[in-house]
């Protein structure tokens, strides 16, 4: 069960290859519209997989996880505009800021259990949004806008879009790998023990405060990184876009849809959710009530398939587990 032996899981590489193949599809066809669709899916994969480390592995429900995406985006765009940083160090700084916020918050709010923790995360997201709204260095309510010329360093706007897409694909693959490595590690086993019964885990010697805090930090890092990427591509960032509570909950829905606690679940959940949303938005019949249809779907899953799609498959076909990490 060493790390290297673990990485020989056929399912992991099969699905990494599938994600890579899907990711390369727009590059081969050179279609910008497909690229934009898949960019959104990959962004969702990163957000959902990151949340899964906290929600699916550790069992802590964060309703305000988007705060890390928004904060990362703000820090990154601030460094780019105010200090002329290039995108790469700004992305790293965004990730580190989010991870650091999680480290600080974790010390305090991870003591809360169950719904109290979930509520605290909502409170923090809302407090952060309201604060940034008043924070002049980050532009207050108008936010931060990039000058179009920043894209010149990356071969112009058109080229920059392709490059950003490639980076997003790489980050999504990295995140899948990270999810896997965490889950099959001793640290990950400690998290699963906390999810199943925190008191029992403590009695067995799992240092729960430390494990939970690191899970929170890990789940905050990549959302911070892709926050910079997303808002750099977007060209501007404003408080309502950056800390949209609704997006937090979409992340939860994706994880639940695909199957919490599995590696593949958030990936398929993100793809399925975005695909469905796209279909509903373009259909005349459902365009106006796409939110309702999504709500009904979510309700059906919660009530009847609580393990999610991948969880259901794993329970139904135990022999396929190797291929459904």
């Amino acid at each position: 069960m060493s790390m290297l032996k673990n990485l020989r899981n056929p399912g992991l590489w099969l699905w990494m290859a599938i994600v890579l193949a899907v990711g390369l599809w727009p590059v081969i066809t050179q279609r910008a519209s497909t690229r934009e669709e898949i960019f959104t899916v990959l962004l969702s994969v990163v957000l959902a997989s990151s949340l899964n480390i906290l929600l699916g592995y550790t069992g802590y429900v964060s309703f305000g996880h988007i705060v890390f995406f928004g904060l990362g985006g703000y820090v990154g765009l601030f460094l780019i505009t105010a200090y002329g940083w290039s995108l790469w160090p700004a992305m790293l700084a965004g990730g580190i800021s989010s991870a650091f916020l999680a480290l600080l918050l974790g010390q305090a709010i991870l003591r809360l259990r169950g719904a109290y923790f979930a509520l605290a995360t909502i409170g923090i997201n809302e407090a952060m949004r309201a604060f940034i709204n008043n924070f002049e260095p980050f532009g207050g309510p108008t936010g931060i806008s990039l000058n179009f010329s920043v894209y010149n360093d990356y071969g112009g706007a058109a080229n920059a879009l392709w490059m950003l897409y490639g980076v997003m694909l790489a980050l999504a693959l990295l995140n899948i790998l990270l999810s896997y490595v965490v889950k099959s590690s001793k640290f990950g086993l400690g998290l699963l023990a906390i999810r199943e019964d925190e008191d029992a885990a403590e009695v067995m010697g799992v240092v729960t405060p430390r494990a939970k805090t690191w899970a929170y930090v890990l789940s905050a890092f990549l959302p911070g990184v892709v926050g910079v990427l997303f808002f750099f591509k977007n060209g501007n960032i404003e408080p309502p876009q950056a800390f949209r509570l609704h997006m937090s909950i979409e992340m939860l829905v994706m994880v639940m849809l695909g199957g919490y606690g599995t590696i593949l679940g958030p990936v398929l959940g993100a793809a399925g959710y975005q695909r469905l949303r796209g279909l509903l938005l373009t259909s005349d019949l459902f365009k106006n009530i796409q939110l309702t249809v999504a709500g009904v779907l979510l309700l059906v899953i919660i009530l009847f398939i609580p393990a999610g799609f991948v969880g259901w498959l794993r329970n139904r076909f135990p022999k396929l587990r190797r291929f459904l990490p």
Partner: protein
Amino acid sequence: MDILAFLVDGLLIGFVYGIAAMGLTLIWGVMNVINLSHGAIIALGMFGIYLLFSLFGVNPYIGVVLVALAGLITGMLIYAIAIHRVIDAPHLSTLLATFAVNMIIIGLGTSAFSTSPRNVDVALGSIEMGPVAFPATRAVAAVASVLVTGALYYFLYRTTLGKYIRAVTDNRAAAELMGIPSARILALSFGLGTMLAAIAGGLIATFFPFTILSGATYELKSFVICVLGGVGNPVGALVGGLILGSLEGVIPAFMPTSWVPVLEFILFVVILLVRPTGLLGRKK
């Protein structure tokens, strides 16, 4: 003298906040479910008054009574369809189930009413008390809130059904052993919670403009108030509402209004951390 006017204004709205939070805290206390469709129901309450008023010319205060009834029935239906099946599942299930209900209602509401602002024109003039003047609609809403609180207390403490609800709150398994039909009591409690949300929405609609999305703001305020007043404590919710209302009234006298939510949510998180049983709750 400004500050006194702000304070009175805030207090009066605080009563209505209290009613909204009471709905949330009742459900939370009885069945340990955080109802994320609370805001959507508040919005439905607002639109209920609006439709009755604009289509049939029903007086908004009579409208509130009808909306309350509709809220009760809607809540019992929501419980039966979306919650009963997962009532004993981990809290994530009920959080997401109620959020799914929220999505369904908001989706339907948005397609029916769009997100443009509406208002219900109630002209009752204003009341002057010494140096302070305030709109009469707010005073009526405050009085209505007190009446609703009184009625709720009477129901919970003086009627058999109310006793059943308190028994189920205390210990559901034991209540079942005593022959109390817990499923129906839970449905009723959920209905009462949504009824309070609908009433709050209806009252708010008499003095503030609103959209189908407005409920979300009041839902968040309700969370803050619930935690202030202590989960499951209806009078705590009313007191919490008054505290929040007066803070909202008074803070703008000292700093820009946009800082109000920052302070509100920081207060919320701090109370969760240091005193999760609420300011009025028992110390652990």
